């Protein structure tokens, strides 16, 4: 495969620069020795990282967020994959409506969902529970998963699946051994995107999180409502480091490319 031309590379560098700029600045600020947000002009300090230790609720929230993200995105994938296949593969009555329904949470402002879920969960007694959080997150992240899986499965070469079933693969086996691996980049991206969205959701979660089970972004959000100090930057930076480390480990163990690109491709 040919490489990118100089123009493309310049574009690429600028693009990455744009993406990284605010993150780098947050990381830089995290090392300040001042009591307020500023670039570390008077020497580096780890005091704000140490301060995270004094706020165990950030760490607890981080764990909750991870768990919530993992559970809800996995559930969302389980629901989205069959639905995406139905929509991508079949012409049936109500197809458009079903698709619109599945994508609709995207179009409902999260603040509205937050209020709606809060009232609903309070009514059915799920208020402030982890189950409630998971269910609401499944709803809001499903469109992401669905959209990416749809993009991966529309226009997929059906002949390959035909080949599998001609060799005796049942629908399920055919799905598991052929369709799934082929749409895996879509499914994986879908999962990642779903996870990220769940992990990062604030607006809605603010309403349904209870003090016991709250997510990191909600904690951060509530925290900066009242104090913007370098602690937020330190938590963010720590989160960035953890993320990068996790990605690197994932890359080593499984291969990010393999996950997002799929096997047997260049």
């Amino acid at each position: 495969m040919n490489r990118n031309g100089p123009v493309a590379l310049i574009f690429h560098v600028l693009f990455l620069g744009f993406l990284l700029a605010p993150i780098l600045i947050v990381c830089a600020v995290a090392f300040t020795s001042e009591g307020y947000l500023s670039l570390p002009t008077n020497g580096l300090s780890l005091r704000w990282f140490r301060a995270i230790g004094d706020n165990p609720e950030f760490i607890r929230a981080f764990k909750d967020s991870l768990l919530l993200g993992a559970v809800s995105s996995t559930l969302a994938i389980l629901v989205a994959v069959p639905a995406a296949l139905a929509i991508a593969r079949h012409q049936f009555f109500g197809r458009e409506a079903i698709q619109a329904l599945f994508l609709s949470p995207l179009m409902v402002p999260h603040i509205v969902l937050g209020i709606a879920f809060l009232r609903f969960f309070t009514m059915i007694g799920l208020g402030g529970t982890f189950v409630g959080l998971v269910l609401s997150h499944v709803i809001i992240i499903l469109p992401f998963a669905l959209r990416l899986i749809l993009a991966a499965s529309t226009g997929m070469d059906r002949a390959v699946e035909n080949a599998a079933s001609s060799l005796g693969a049942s629908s399920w086996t055919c799905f598991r051994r052929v369709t799934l691996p082929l749409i895996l980049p879509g499914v994986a991206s879908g999962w990642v995107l779903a996870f990220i969205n769940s992990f990062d959701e604030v607006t809605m979660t603010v309403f349904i999180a209870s003090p016991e089970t709250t997510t990191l972004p909600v904690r951060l959000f509530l925290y900066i409502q009242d104090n913007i100090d370098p602690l937020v930057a330190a938590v963010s930076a720590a989160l960035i480091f953890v993320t990068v480390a996790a990605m690197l480990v994932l890359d080593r163990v499984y291969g990010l490319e393999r996950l997002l690109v799929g096997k047997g491709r260049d």
Partner: protein
Amino acid sequence: QEKTLYVAAYGGSFEQTMRKEIIPAFEKANGVKVEYVAGNSTDNLAKLQAQKGNQQIDVVILDDGPMYQAVALNFCADLEKAPVYDQLYDLAKMPSGKAINFGAVGTGILYNKAYFDENKIPAPTSWKDIEDPRFKKKLAIPPINNSYGLHALVMMARLNGGGETNIDPGFKEFKDKINPNVLAYEPSPGKMTELFQSNQAVIAVWGSGRAKALADTGFPATFVYPKEGGIVLGSAACQIAGSKNAAEAQKFIQHMLGAEAQTALAVSAGFGPVNKTVELPVEKQAGIPYGPEQVGKLLVVDWDTINKNREVWNKRWTREIER
């Protein structure tokens, strides 16, 4: 099986004080666990409304204005009698008897002393100083759904011949004179702090408690009450109607009114004590509306009138001022 008491209250420096100095003692004394739900007054009021009929919060702490509303919306239960109520100044009591002011701060003007000195601007002395064209795009004011912003609006009305019952002059003043200076109508105390720290704002209408917290970080910010008078902002607590832990909730409120808690709130969060038995050393009194005389020097606003008109004012505010 330990009971859990949910307390919804402000975040930030106030939360730190509560968590470190007030809650542990209460937990120990009563064998309950306290979960702190951070949020500003309006957020917490909204939560109460959402959970109506199935309240998860046991105790709520709100600014006095929103507390009137909470009481009016029947979110609060009656306060049980307890000896500690007899130790309070009268100004702590709220007319309904369902909520109690446990502290007070004052609304005034905060400014960046370093910036003022550098540019040889004299310290502000009057509410009208925020109209100084030198502060173009350098002024920050909370919007009127926040008590500080509301105070500012009422104050401007009063200075121009109006008041709570005739708010027009206030709107006019904001629209014509103040708006050009306003960098942001900023409700979030965190954001307000950040605007100061990044030197984008150098003057603001804000509260004494918040100002104290900012100054405590080492930032050269100074708080003054303008010569026309600062305004008192009460902070009130109530037990939520239908709470499953009513007894503990009542105890918690009583605990907050106790001398020990009152002292801690004063020293760490800048809340003027409402308990007569609290004695603060003079050096600790700076920036705190301390005792009836000092509190008495501050102006009060008429929440009844305000709350009646608030909806209309909000509407006008978003359309005329924040546009």
